[in-house]
């Protein structure tokens, strides 16, 4: 069981993320960023994930192949609010993509965060390689991959299941699917078999767990168990995590509060109050603190310069000169 202190910490990080995401949405609506996509509704799972990661660079740490709803994980790992706001406002100082990519498209070499990319499911192909490297080198790290439910229809999902479960060549990959029951506007039951996602992993002999991603404490425990298995057995494990999509798909679909879905923060607050770990005024104070941090960060970012147009040729190749040849 997690101590009160640990529960408080989780709560704080959940709220911090939510505040940040709501700020990003406001930025989009007021023209301070072209597009928003993010993870409100997934904090109760993504914060515990961030806490349990073996963070660092190289094979002896966990390799992370994330999708665009992982802000809670990144903030938990230590990412700064202001940096996310920088990416939202696409300024040159955006440390993840230099103003090139959408918000929540992270890339952090020191933490093995492989850069998040918009195409759905490709990370399930790339993660095979870090898994192979870790397996062969008998490294201490494992590979963790996350993505959505609709995306499991892409072939890379099968590639990941198959390559990681080859007999005597199993890979240490924690395969996570966050199931919010939607593609953009397409309900899951319209395009998927009723057997569910975890069943498909079982077909490869992969161990699985179904997790209520709206509860941070059960999420934490389930993650601990699954990670323990992958770290020790060096075999794949699939977690299907049921989460909410509180602001719809993205700014393309309006980014308005949708209602009718469980809000993990509200739910957790009820628990914390019941267990007398925190009270309403604590909640308010925390929220305020992060709202101020976000606001301050935004003011700073709004003054920062946009990228230099000539910089488009930077990083085409490792040695820039080749890019300019043409």
């Amino acid at each position, binding site marked *: 069981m997690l101590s009160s202190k640990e529960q408080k910490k989780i709560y704080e990080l959940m709220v911090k993320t939510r505040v940040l995401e709501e700020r990003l949405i406001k930025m989009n609506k007021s023209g301070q960023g072209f597009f928003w996509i993010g993870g409100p509704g997934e904090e109760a799972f993504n914060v515990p994930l961030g806490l349990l990661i073996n963070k660092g660079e190289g094979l002896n740490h966990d390799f992370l192949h994330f999708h665009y709803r992982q802000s809670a994980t990144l903030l938990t790992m230590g990412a700064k609010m202001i940096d996310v706001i920088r990416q939202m406002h696409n300024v040159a100082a955006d440390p993840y993509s230099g103003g090139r990519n959408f918000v929540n498209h992270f890339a952090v070499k020191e933490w093995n965060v492989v850069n998040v990319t918009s195409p759905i499911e490709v990370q399930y192909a790339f993660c095979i390689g870090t898994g192979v490297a870790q397996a062969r080198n008998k490294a201490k790290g494992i590979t963790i991959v996350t993505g959505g439910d609709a995306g499991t229809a892409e072939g890379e999902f099968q590639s990941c299941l198959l390559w990681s479960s080859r007999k005597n060549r199993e890979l240490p990959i924690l395969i996570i699917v966050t199931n919010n029951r939607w593609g953009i506007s397409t309900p899951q039951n319209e395009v998927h078999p009723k057997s569910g996602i975890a069943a498909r992993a079982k077909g490869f002999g992969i161990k699985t767990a179904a997790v209520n991603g709206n509860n941070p404490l059960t999420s934490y425990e389930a993650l601990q168990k699954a990670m323990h298995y992958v770290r020790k057995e060096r075999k794949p494990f699939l977690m299907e995590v049921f989460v909410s999509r509180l602001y719809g798909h993205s700014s393309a679909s309006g980014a308005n509060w949708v209602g009718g879905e469980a809000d993990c923060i509200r739910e957790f607050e009820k628990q914390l109050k019941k267990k007398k770990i925190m009270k309403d005024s604590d909640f308010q104070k925390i929220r305020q603190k992060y709202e101020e941090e976000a606001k301050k960060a935004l003011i700073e970012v709004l003054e920062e310069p946009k990228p230099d147009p*000539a910089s488009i040729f930077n990083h085409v190749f490792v040695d820039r000169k080749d890019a300019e040849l043409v």
Partner: protein
Amino acid sequence: MATMAQAIRLALHYGEENLGVKDIFGEDVGPPLGGVFTCTQGLKNAWNSPLDERGIIGCAMGLAIAGQRPVAEIQFSDYIFNTIDLLKMCGNTLWCSNGIWQVPMVVMTPVGAGIHGSIYHSHSFESIMTHIQGWKIVMPSCAYDAYGLMLSAIQDPNPVMYLIPKALLRSQGEEKIPGEPENPKELSKMIDAPLGDRSQWKPKWPDLGDPKMPLGKAKIRLEGEHISVISYGRMLPLCMEAARQLADEGVDCEVIDLRTLFPYDQKTIFDSVKKTGRVVVVNEDTEVTNYGEHILRRITEDCFYYLEAPPTLLAGANVPGIGLSEPLEQASVPQLSSIINTLRKVAETA
């Protein structure tokens, strides 16, 4: 006048009613959304596919083989690149079977920059697509052509790739689609879905006609004597604007809208270049192994002795993506200013 998105919707409706189209499908193509750009709103045969582009193209090909007339959508051309082997097969099935199996299908997909789409909602596709055989490839630059080309695409017995210049989807046309009501507001009331709950909504379709727009025919949008400007899709209106501004300087541009990228209208192109002696091809795809280079190569081979200045390509920078930030996007794809500068330079070359 209809927007390009409405024009596509009207064409698909005409296809459902008159041309045997029973499947209009892709990711989020069916209700409630009707496509991320509303191109398939309210269509009775529109349905949502799994999030699987390879399955979508495979399904379309199977439907075509089975004698249906499917229209499949890939949500953004940025996500079509995992299907290229299948596209090649759609295009080679007739040939491989020595004429036995026809594949009459349409694939539509939005292309190009201009909506702050960043790296994965800004891709062009014509250069790779024109390198694939057995397909006809079209790209409208206005609502009227969007309508006419779609009807012809559906009726063609070959696979047709229908590239949508996404930044133009909301732009209104200047020419009335056959059957379109006079007032664009009326059209909107009839066929645009309401905000909020749409479960009870039904569109009211106008009574539409077929303008019979042949594939493979370019359109001279502006006649001129000094320089041939060959373009299509999103760059076409920019070229027109550039031509208007250059006219004030005494530079007389002939602007050609290709409309069909393959098979393309060689006669119109060659006739124009032979007249003007100068040619610029403008598109926004990246510049290395670019479709415009094919057009220029054919011009150089066939009209070499008419050329008075180097035939020139103005295209996207050879970088891996369009950056989100405004200055990055502007530096990556042709802008009005760079078009004007390039045309002026070529016009002035002695």
